[in-house]
C-alpha cells in the first residue's frame, strides 16, 4: 500500500506546488486513443493471408470506387468473420484485463494486486471448467436457461467468490497486508487448481482437449457469438470504471480518510470487487488465461501519468487494448500459416517487464 499512498500524497503535494500531471495525463490519453486506432487498423490489415482490409472496406463503403479487381468472397470472410471479431474481442479483453488490474491495485492499495497473480483468474477458470465438464450432464438445465451466457457467468461467479475471500482474508481494519494477500492468493489459486484438477479427471477426451486449448489463452476462435456472450458483461464493468476513480483516489489515503471525504466506503468496495470479478470472469471465459496485461499496463502508465485513477483507468483501458491487439497480431503472423498461443507472447513480454518493476521498486515491495 505504501506505493500508492506515497504516490497519491506525492501527487497532491505536487498539485499544490510544482503543478499537477493532469495536463500531461490528458495528452497521454489522446495519444493512447490514436495509438489504439492505429493498432486496430494494423490488426485488421495483417494476417496470414494477403486479404486486404482496405480493399474490403473501400468496396463496401464506396462500391463505385472499386477498381474492378473483384474482391473475392474469401477476402471478405477473412476480414469480416475472422479478423474483425478478433479485433473487437481483443479490444474488449485487453481493456478489461488492464482496467481490472488497475482497479484491483487501487482497491487493495497494493501494486502487486493483479487478477492473474492473486488467484482471481484461477477462480474464474474453475467456474468455466465446471461448465465445460458438467455442462452436458449435471448442469444441463442451467445451460438451457442461460444459454451462451452460462460460461461467462460461471467464470464471473468463480472470480467473484475468489475476490471476496481474498479481500476478507487479506484486509484487516481497512489495511491490506501485501504478504497476506499474496499468500492468500497462492492458497486460493492452489484450491481452484485442485478443484479444476478434479474436473479435468472427470472430463472425457473431447472435453479435455477443449480445456487444454482453452487454458492456453488465445483470441483464436473469436466469433460474434462469443462477443455477444462476454461483451455486455465486460462493457458493463468498463462503463462502471470511471465512476470508481474518485473513490479509488480517496481510498488511497486510507479507509477512514475516504469515509471523511464522503465516500460510502463499504458500498464502494463492493462495486469495485464486482466489476473486477465481472471483467476478469468474462475475459477468462472467452479467451482463457492471458497473463500480465493487468499488471504491466497500469504500472507502465503510473510511471508516465501518475497514480490519479481519473486518468489511469481510461488510459489503462486504451493501452491494454492496444497491447493485446499487438500481441495478437504477432501471434497470428509470426509462425503463419500456423498460430502461436497469445498467452505465450504476453508472458514472454510481461515476465521480464514485471522483473524490471521489481528491481526498480525493490524497497517498496518488502514483505
Amino acid at each position, binding site marked *: 500500500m505504501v506505493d500508492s499512498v506515497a504516490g497519491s500524497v506525492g501527487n497532491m503535494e505536487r498539485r499544490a506546488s510544482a503543478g499537477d500531471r493532469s495536463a500531461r495525463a490528458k495528452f497521454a490519453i489522446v495519444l493512447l486513443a490514436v495509438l489504439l486506432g492505429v493498432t486496430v487498423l494494423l490488426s485488421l490489415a495483417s494476417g496470414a493471408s494477403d486479404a486486404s482490409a482496405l480493399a474490403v472496406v473501400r468496396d463496401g463503403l464506396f462500391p463505385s470506387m472499386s477498381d474492378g479487381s473483384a474482391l473475392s468472397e474469401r477476402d471478405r470472410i477473412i476480414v469480416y468473420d*475472422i479478423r474483425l471479431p478478433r479485433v473487437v474481442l481483443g479490444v474488449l479483453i485487453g481493456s478489461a484485463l488492464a482496467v481490472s488490474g488497475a482497479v484491483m491495485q487501487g482497491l487493495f492499495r497494493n501494486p502487486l494486486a493483479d487478477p492473474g497473480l492473486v488467484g482471481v483468474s484461477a477462480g474464474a477458470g474453475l467456474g468455466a471448467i465446471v461448465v465445460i465438464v458438467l455442462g452436458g450432464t449435471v448442469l444441463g438445465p442451467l445451460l438451457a436457461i442461460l444459454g451462451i451466457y452460462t460460461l461467462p457467468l460461471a467464470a464471473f461467479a468463480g472470480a467473484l467468490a475468489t475476490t471476496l475471500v481474498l479481500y476478507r482474508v487479506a484486509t484487516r481494519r481497512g489495511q491490506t497486508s501485501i504478504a497476506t494477500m499474496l499468500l492468500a492468493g497462492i492458497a486460493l489459486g492452489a484450491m481452484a487448481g485442485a478443484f479444476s484438477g478434479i474436473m479435468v479427471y472427470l472430463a472425457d477426451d473431447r472435453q479435455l482437449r477443449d480445456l487444454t486449448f482453452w487454458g492456453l489463452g488465445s483470441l483464436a476462435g473469436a466469433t460474434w457469438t462469443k462477443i455477444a456472450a462476454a461483451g455486455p458483461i465486460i462493457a458493463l464493468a468498463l462503463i462502471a470504471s470511471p465512476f470508481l476513480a474518485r473513490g479509488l483516489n480517496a481510498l488511497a489515503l486510507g479507509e477512514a480518510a475516504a469515509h471523511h471525504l464522503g465516500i460510502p466506503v463499504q458500498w464502494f468496495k463492493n462495486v469495485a470487487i464486482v466489476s473486477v470479478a465481472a471483467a476478469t470472469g468474462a475475459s477468462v471465459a472467452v479467451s482463457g488465461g492471458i497473463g500480465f496485461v493487468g499488471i504491466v499496463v497500469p504500472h507502465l502508465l503510473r510511471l508516465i501519468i501518475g497514480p490519479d485513477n481519473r486518468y489511469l483507468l481510461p488510459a489503462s483501458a486504451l493501452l491494454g487494448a492496444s497491447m493485446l491487439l499487438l500481441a495478437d497480431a504477432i501471434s497470428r503472423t509470426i509462425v503463419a500459416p500456423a498460430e502461436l498461443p497469445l498467452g505465450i507472447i504476453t508472458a514472454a513480454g510481461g515476465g521480464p517487464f514485471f522483473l524490471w518493476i521489481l528491481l526498480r521498486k525493490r524497497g517498496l515491495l518488502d514483505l
Partner: protein
Amino acid sequence: MSIFSRSMRVTAIGIALAFGSLAVAQSEEGKSVFPDASRIAAVGGSITEIVYALGEEGKLVARDSTSTYPESALKLPDVGYMRALSPEGVLSVNPSGILALAGSGPKEAIDVLKKASVTYIEVPETYDHQGILDKVRIVGHTLGADDKAATLAKSIDADLKAAEDLTANVAERKRVLFILSMEGGKILAAGDHTAANGIIKLAGGVNAMEGVNGYKQLTDEAALTAKPDMILMMDSAGALATADADVFSNPALATTPAGKAKKLIRMDGSYLLGFGPRTASAVRDLAAALYGDQIKG
C-alpha cells in the same frame, strides 16, 4: 496466469496426438468427393500418409503439424496443429478443399472455413484393422482415386493380416501398459478406446489397463494390479523425454513384472498410433519386441 502449468501445455500436443476421437462419421452436407481436388490441405498425420501412399501428393498444398511422414511432406506449409487450426492460416494457402481427420478443429475455425466455401471433408477413424482400410477408401474416394485406393487397401489388408498372424499362435499373451506421459511422476496410461489400445491388440498383446475408458492417470496401486509385462511409450525428444531410469525408478512401476525385467519399448508416436499405411509395420515391430523368438518372421 492460466491454471494449467507450462509443463501441461507442453504435454498438450503429445496428449492430443494420442487422442483420436471415437469417430462419428461426419459426411456433412453429404459431400464425399471434392468438387475441385486440385488444392487440398491435409490435416492429420495418417491422412497425409495415405495421400502420399496413393500417389496423389501433387494435389496437396498444405499439411498440419502432425503430418511429419513421409519426409517430403515436411516441405508443405504447416497450417498448425490439427486441433488448433487458425482459419486465416488455412485460407492463406488458398485451398480448394480440406481433408481432415476426425477430431480436427476447433469448431469455430471449421465453421468459418465452411462459410468461405472451402469443401471440408472429415475422415472418421477407428482403431482397428477395418478402420485403416475404411480410411484409405474414403481418402481415395474424396480425391477421385477409388481404384488406387482399392489397390492400396487390398495390399494393406494383406500386410496387416500377415502381421496379425505372427502372434496368432502365441500361447501366453503379454500384458502391455502404454504410458502417454510421466510428467511430474504422474503416469498417464491408455485404457480402452484409444489408439494405443488398438495397436496393442493388433500386435497380440493385452492392454494392461483394460476396462478403463480413455487416457487416465494411473494410481500406484492400479499400476501394481495392472501387472504389465512390458511398458510402451512414445519417442520424445529433448527435455521432455522421460529417461528409462526414471520410468523404472517409479516405485509403482518398479515392482511390476515389466519393471523387474526392465522391459520398455519406445516407438515413434505417429508410426505407432497413426493407424495408416505404416501400421502393419508398426504391428510387426511391436509384436517382435513383445514376443521375440516366439514368433516367426
